[in-house]
């Protein structure tokens, strides 16, 4: 077995308690980051499903020929922001009103003339569901001669925009704060492991070990601890997710990539935490 790997693994055997403590500390630090990540992921998903409903409805002047609308639909669908454009005829609008507004069914039933206009419903691509783009597309829709009025719930889209900005800012600040705390805690834990082996490091140096030789097992060990901590953190997060899902709200879990990112984050902190601690220690002795 490679010497670096053997030395790194030996530590787990020689100081099992301290190693377990390190992994647990790292796991809980990352768990906190993970929980926050879960909240962020779910919030993002919720906002995305709300944003899904962003729609621009253009009401058409009565008597607009179907051919004109069909041609216009082609144009609209060619807009870069547009995901889909649907033509809703007057009859379809009425049918929909009948099924959706059941309490008015009787009134709607007795109508002699359909009062509802035909419309074109435009859905935007996810990246364009903000105020500016919605406004822009709405303006272009107004440019069609047969369009009577354009509605898209301006207030609502603005609020959504605002909410998204808050979520992003909070996510960034709180996420960064949690990450920094995790880095500090994990760094301290790793430093304890290094200090515990002060004597050994001194002996290694006496017999002529290079700094690189001394450093390598620590780096590997730190990375392994970070990775194990990450795996445990994901497991804990999954536990939390199952509980939340069953008792509270229907939530989403990390994608495979996000989970791997958390484990990777742990591994990196373990690695660089060790590098910093050992480096500082070696410079002193």
């Amino acid at each position, binding site marked *: 077995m490679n010497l670096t790997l053997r030395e790194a693994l030996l530590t787990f055997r020689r100081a099992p308690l301290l190693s377990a403590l390190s992994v647990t500390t790292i796991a809980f630090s990352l768990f906190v980051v993970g929980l926050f990540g879960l909240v962020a992921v779910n919030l993002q998903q919720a906002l995305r499903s709300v944003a899904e409903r962003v729609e621009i409805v253009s009401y058409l002047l009565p008597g607009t020929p179907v051919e004109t609308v069909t041609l216009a639909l082609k144009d609209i669908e060619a807009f870069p922001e547009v995901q889909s454009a649907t033509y809703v005829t007057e009859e379809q609008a009425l049918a929909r009103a009948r099924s959706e507004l059941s309490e008015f069914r009787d009134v709607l039933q007795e109508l002699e003339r359909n009062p509802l206009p035909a419309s074109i419903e435009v859905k935007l691509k996810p990246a364009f569901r903000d105020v500016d783009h919605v406004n822009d597309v709405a303006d272009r829709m107004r440019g069609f001669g047969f369009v009577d009025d354009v509605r898209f719930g301006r207030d609502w889209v603005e609020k959504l925009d605002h909410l998204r900005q808050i979520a992003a800012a909070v996510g960034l600040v709180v996420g960064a704060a949690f990450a920094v705390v995790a880095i500090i805690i994990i760094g301290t834990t790793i430093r304890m492991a290094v200090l515990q082996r002060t004597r050994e490091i001194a002996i290694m140096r006496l017999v*002529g070990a290079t700094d690189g030789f001394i450093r390598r097992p620590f780096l590997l060990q730190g990375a392994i601890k970070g990775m194990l901590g990450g795996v445990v953190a994901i497991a804990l997060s999954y536990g939390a997710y199952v509980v939340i899902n069953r008792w509270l709200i229907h939530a989403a879990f990390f994608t495979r990539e996000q989970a791997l990112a958390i484990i990777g984050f742990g591994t990196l902190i373990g690695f660089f935490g060790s590098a910093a601690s050992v480096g500082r220690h070696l410079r002193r002795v």
Partner: protein
Amino acid sequence: MIKFTNVSKAFPKGGLALKDVSFHIQKGEFGFLTGHSGAGKSTVLRLIYAEEPVTSGEVRVSGFSVAEISRREVPKLRRRLGIVFQDFRLLEDRTAEENVAFALEVTGARRAGIAARVMRVLTQVGLAAKAKAYPRELSGGEQQRVAIARALVNEPTVLLADEPTGNLDERATRGVFQLLRDINASGTAVVMATHDLDLVRQAPYRVIELQEGALVYDSAVDDSRGQTAAP
């Protein structure tokens, strides 16, 4: 081999630990460093293995100028030295043979030859039978033998021993001292710091005595001067 020229060592808080010390230990020589505790014996050794920077003067060891040595070169210097301490400094969670092998492994020695080399030095120090024992299972004398084996396994040109018998009873002391003499007889220079004057009197070796950081007696210099002065 080891040459001190007007060497002084000052510690930031401890004042002057060595004052203008000069001596030269030849290849294959056995030299005692004597003096009361605090006289500077350990400081001399620490300068030799580059554990402390030299304040002024020149220290040359095995072709290295220790006063100017870079951090990267320190391991290379130490691989030419074997170092033994009063407190043995063994790794408690490794067996005798693992402790010795460790010194080879850290220098990147070829894996294939390690076991045989370890066994050879353990045999040399008389501990082949206890290769699998942990330090706590060994007596003080035996632990020091393991430490000596570890110091020898890299075939150093100089063995530095800082009070190697300081923690040992009389019998173990004699055994360890004899071992050091045998090592010296096979060509390795030995520098042994000790305040055990009985030991010093037992053998006709070079004696360098320090007092409060100053070299007050060097048998190689003073005795020859005495001889030339005598009619």
